[in-house]
């Protein structure tokens, strides 16, 4: 049985990952029904507390909650400056007083979901914190790969792009290595963390080398809106060196799949053609995201609260 919160993949045991994925595989069936709703979380309240703009992750969590019949409330707080850490906790405590059964937090600063979890009674799910982790994205990527390949153990996964600023990369590195895959990363040297190999991955600066023998190719979004300073000379140069198209994909295994956490900068990370068609599985990732988040909400929300659990122990 998984713990109270889902804050990251780094501290999530492999068996918990397997429980979540097995549950998500069952949840997928609900999305194929005519009535896409089960009464499981009826009368439960889920709060989406987003300090960063988000469309995809927010709506994915919202749909997941609604398919389980929970009442979902979205709080989007645009101001996310670090200096207001105090007021973040105040906001969280205020929400907690409304007795939610689960709080989903996204924040631009690493560690905020953890800080909020420390003061809240309700379980907290990290929906992305700074450059730290984005656990549900990694889990839905694992689900998608398992669905495509029938296994994760023994696969070779190449993650390409801005590894340094990517919480998706970090969570996926933890997730795929835990599940027995070989993970490689590649990107401009300025975008590879200097100690990245300490995470158990191999780092490359050549697209051709990183693709050699890869079963899964994951392109990361170049987050032009977040990058301050020059990490590469130009978008065009990035695209020529690390952008994927069908010709370059030939270096990977014949049956390699292409993934992207979205939204795709078309013509930068992926060619138009690759963004829209097999072997890219980008829309499957989105679809699986709902089932995966249903699984996490089912496993975490509305269980007897932390405080009660502590009482029971004492």
């Amino acid at each position, binding site marked *: *049985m998984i713990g109270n919160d889902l804050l990251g993949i780094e501290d999530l045991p492999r068996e918990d990952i397997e429980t979540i994925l*097995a549950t998500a595989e069952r949840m997928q069936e609900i999305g194929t029904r005519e009535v896409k709703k089960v009464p499981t979380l009826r009368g439960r309240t889920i709060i989406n507390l987003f300090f960063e703009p988000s469309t995809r992750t927010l709506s994915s969590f919202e749909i997941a909650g609604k398919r*389980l019949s929970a009442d979902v409330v979205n709080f989007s707080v645009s101001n996310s400056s670090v200096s207001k850490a105090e007021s973040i906790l105040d906001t969280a405590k205020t929400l907690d007083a409304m007795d939610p059964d689960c709080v989903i937090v996204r924040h631009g600063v690493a560690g905020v979901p953890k800080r909020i979890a420390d003061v809240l009674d309700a379980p907290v799910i990290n929906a992305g914190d700074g450059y730290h982790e984005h656990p549900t994205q990694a889990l839905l990527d694992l689900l998608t790969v398992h669905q495509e390949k*029938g296994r994760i153990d023994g696969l070779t996964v190449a993650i390409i792009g801005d590894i340094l600023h990517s919480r998706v990369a970090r969570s996926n590195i933890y997730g795929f290595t835990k599940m027995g895959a070989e993970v490689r990363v590649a990107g401009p040297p300025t975008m590879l963390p200097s100690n990245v190999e300490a995470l158990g991955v191999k780092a490359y600066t050549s697209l051709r080398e990183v693709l050699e023998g890869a079963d899964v190719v994951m392109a990361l979004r170049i987050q032009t809106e977040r990058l301050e300073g020059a990490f590469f000379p130009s978008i065009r140069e990035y695209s020529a060196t690390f952008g994927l198209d069908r010709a370059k994909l030939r270096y990977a295994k014949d049956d390699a799949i292409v993934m992207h956490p979205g939204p795709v900068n078309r013509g930068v990370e992926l060619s138009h053609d690759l963004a829209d068609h097999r072997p890219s599985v980008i829309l499957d990732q989105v679809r699986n995201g709902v089932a995966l988040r249903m699984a996490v909400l089912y496993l975490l929300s509305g269980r007897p609260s932390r405080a009660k659990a502590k009482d029971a122990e004492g």
Partner: protein
Amino acid sequence: MPILEQAPPESRVLADSVPPPAEQGVRVILDDAGIRRSITRIAHEILERNDDAESLYLVAIPNGGVPLARLLVENLKQIGGRDIPLGILDTTLYRDDLVIRGERPRLRETEMPSSVDEKLVILVDDVVSTGRTIRAAMDALMDFGRPRGVQVVSLVDRGHRELPIKIDYVGKNIPTRADEKVRLRGQGAGDDPLEVVLMTHADEAVGGPAEAGWGERR
């Protein structure tokens, strides 16, 4: 295990002829042959009661209902000469005790091949007691359409009803104490015979038919 593998053939024959030690507090109350007889009788009863066999639709409640429903489909085909559609419906997400229990039970398979609109649905479960699973199954069923009618098959009715649920076809009534457990074991295929056991010292380790774990392709 290695010890058994290294044993000479004679001693293995000897080992086979010695009955396995009885499991503590576990009593077989229906064996494979008895279960098959009950299911055959129930198949006759279903066809006797429902003269429009073309609208029948069997829905198994996992895990125990699945091997029984497969047997029923075989019997109905033999007796009535017709293939009856078979769905599998997990009731876990419709349970009424998820909040109280806290822990979250593992989800099981749901696979409904078509809508149940205008069908005469026969729910198949292994053991009915409180009636809460059947209640949950009926709620779940309504999410797949509007059946013309719903009837219930249970191999064992062990009493202790808490809801007004009627079982239309019962394999065997087995009076039990509330703290005992009744389980269907086996898959009924190959050398994995079905049996119903009564556990007087309820031990969770002795569960129902094994579930496919994650990573195994279904």
